[in-house]
């Protein structure tokens, strides 16, 4: 026992020393900026709950945002990012909404399952149980084929699908997702009969497209950017209202090709319900200030997201709109 505790101590000391070394270069607990004299909020660290696993889209979004806020000292208190994956986010969100009601220090983020979860009866909390702080950007979706696919345009795809009913297949993430909704809406609007193959994530969808295991697939631009740039895949359409900017400006929208499908994943910050207006104002300012920095704008551009800044009121209204849209399409998917 004595010896084992000794080596354990040695290992621990080494670890502590090394982490301290590494830790020095990261701005962990930055000294607080001069606090506002008239208000004491915030007086303790924030917790930012990511209801998904580390490294995913939501996680990268939140961690980058928190880093920008901390680097620029927009918050006098540190923000701790916590991952609580499970139940497509419903576990994390129900903790925020139910266990932290009225707690302005418990923040979270939204993704499409924030809306689809409660609509399909798989989450006990809906957008109505949250105070909306601000929305920053949307992740659009692309219709993609492999570079050596016979489809040059969306029209080629539609013609082929019509000629070969039930032969053309499409890959997307999971059977109950924005991807699935886009697929069924497209099938419906174009009057085609195709097969939807659900995969477990963007990486698998990309493999299916590249290996031509499915005829086409649906992915976000950030997941497809490297392949697009290298010319390994071709984008036939994008599901935004207007065309994207930058390198992706040549991709036509679904809408301009005659299929009225506008669907994108809104990313923003929410807090539990029942927090005061002053607190909302503070958090809104903090997030929107971060969104105005060049670092943030670079992140948005690098990942081909579309900037759509919304304040608390606009985001609340948008949430209702998004929810209604999902409700409309989910009926179709369910059949």
């Amino acid at each position, binding site marked *: *026992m004595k*010896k*084992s505790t000794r*080596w354990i101590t040695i290992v621990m000391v*080494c*670890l502590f020393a*090394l*982490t301290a*070394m*590494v830790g020095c*270069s*990261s*701005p962990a607990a930055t000294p607080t900026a001069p606090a506002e004299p008239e208000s004491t909020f915030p007086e303790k660290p924030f917790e930012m709950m990511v209801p998904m*696993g*580390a*490294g*995913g889209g939501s*996680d990268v979004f939140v961690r*980058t945002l928190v*880093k920008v806020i901390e680097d620029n000292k927009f918050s006098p208190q540190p923000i701790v*990012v*916590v*991952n*609580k*994956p*499970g*139940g*497509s986010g*419903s*576990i994390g969100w*129900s903790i925020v909404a139910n266990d932290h009601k009225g707690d302005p220090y418990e923040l979270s983020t939204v993704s499409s399952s924030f809306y689809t979860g409660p609509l*399909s009866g798989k989450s*006990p909390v809906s957008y109505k149980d949250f105070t909306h702080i601000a929305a920053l950007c949307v992740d659009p979706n692309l219709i993609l084929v492999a570079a050596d696919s016979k489809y040059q345009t969306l029209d080629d795809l539609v013609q082929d699908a019509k000629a070969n009913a*039930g*032969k053309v297949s499409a890959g997307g993430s*999971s*059977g109950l997702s924005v991807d699935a909704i886009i697929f069924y809406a497209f099938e419906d609007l174009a009057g085609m009969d195709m097969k939807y*193959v659900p*995969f*477990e*994530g963007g*990486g*698998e969808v*990309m*493999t*299916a497209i*590249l*290996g031509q*295991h*499915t005829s086409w697939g649906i992915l976000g631009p*950030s*997941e497809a*950017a*490297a*392949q697009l*740039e*290298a010319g390994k895949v071709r984008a036939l359409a994008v599901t935004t209202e207007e065309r994207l900017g930058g390198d992706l400006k040549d991709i036509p929208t679904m809408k301009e090709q005659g299929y009225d499908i506008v669907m994108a994943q809104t990313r923003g910050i929410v807090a539990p319900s029942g927090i005061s207006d002053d607190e909302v104002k503070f958090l809104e300012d903090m997030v929107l200030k971060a969104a105005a920095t060049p670092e943030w704008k*670079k992140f948005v551009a*690098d*990942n081909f997201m579309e900037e759509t800044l919304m304040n608390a009121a606009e985001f609340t209204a948008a949430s209702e709109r998004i929810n209604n849209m999902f409700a409309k399409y989910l009926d179709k998917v369910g059949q």
Partner: protein
Amino acid sequence: METIQNLLFGLSVANDPINLVYCLVGVIFGTLVGALPGLGPSAGIAVLLPLTFGANPISGIIMLAGIYYGAMYGGSITSILINTPGDSAAVMTTLDGYPMAKKGRAGQALGMAAFASIIGGTISVIAFMFLAPALAEFAIRFGPPEYFALMILGLTTIAGMTGKYPSKGFLSALLGLFFATIGLDLVQGIPRFAFGTYHLYEGLDFIPVAMGLFGIAEILTARSDGNVIKIDKKDVAWRKLLPSKEDWKNAWAHILRSTGIGFFIGMLPGAGATIASFITYGVAKKTSKRSEEFGTGVIEGVAAPEAANNSASIGAMVPLLTLGVPGSGSTAIMLGALMMFGLRPGPLLFDRNPDFVWGLIGSMYIGNVFLLLLAILAVPLFVKVLNVSRPVLSATVMSFILIGSYSLNNSMFDVGLTIGFGVFGFFMKKLEYPAAPMVLALVLGNILETSLRQSIIISGGNPAIFFTRPISGTIMVIAILAVLYPLVKKGIQYFLKSKTA
């Protein structure tokens, strides 16, 4: 010779003092999280991700990669010493590693695990360096039918783990397959067998099951089974702790074969180190001269899965860096990290950021050397853990298992689940139901069902798709031969015997 030049350049990048420190920290950390029950490489990478933000991307990825392959070795430590797999890829190591420890050969098992890991790792880095882009092209030809065939091949290895009573072994595997169906159905999104709790929507996690069935069950039965391991003071000498010449003779062919298989399976997105270790254990058993002794503590039963999981962890870097497609949970988190660094892994990464790619490759050579030094130095220390008195060891191991299962999803639900599977494992052990087939089936079951349904959707309802596609057809034939081979062998022996008689 461009590759050699690039490698020298990469080594010079990796030799930068800061990068060396990051590499060392990554390897130490990886070994630690790997050894802690419950915390695997993906948890380790996830929790240490924020530490890399202050660093430049090269240092960051060097550290994350170090955690990944370090954890693959670290997982073997607790597997061998206390029959508790530190992470999912180390389950197979318990099958022969722990019996070796019971025989008083813990040192040799740990030493062989270290050498096999490092040899596997180093050979894989070489393969990575020369073949990465070409291999990536091959990896994407694996679609749902190919995965299904691979899972079937994996399931055939169960036949080798059923222990004394085949029916109980198969029952254990079938229950494992059933556990894999728990959770939200991927196609329709409806919850199955979730008992009304959101916690089971993402499915039954492998870690609570493995820790309950192996770790807790071992604690509950150790004393009554009389598994008291004592290490003599004089045995804790270096020479006695390292694998003997005979061990090497038995193991080296398995290390090389498992490295190849492990690297290849690791490269396939979605398959990963765990499945690689399962399949190589099965292959080692089939090809070994003393296959009937597997499970009683043979050295190649440790060498094969350990070589495989380390080479798989490096194989998983191939699709990550050349395609931007993560091959495992751990590399998915690394992809997120790279995106935060502002890098975009994909076909152009090798051309645009050569310092990054080659620096990483260089660091993997250096990291494997670190890992070897660390492992060899630490073996005598680890072995001393076995000298701790049984009650104290049981108590502390239990605390590690429970806190480890908590940190999996930061949830007490998983703690309860782990305890529940501990109870289940106790009864399984007492009634001689082997646990390994259940765990294996749980890992394979999810991909098995998903790929089956995806394939049938693609083929429009025709199951012939598994045989008409060249790669999946080949794997299916191998799987069928693997099942038939023992029967055929017996038949031939019987035939020859009857002829000579």
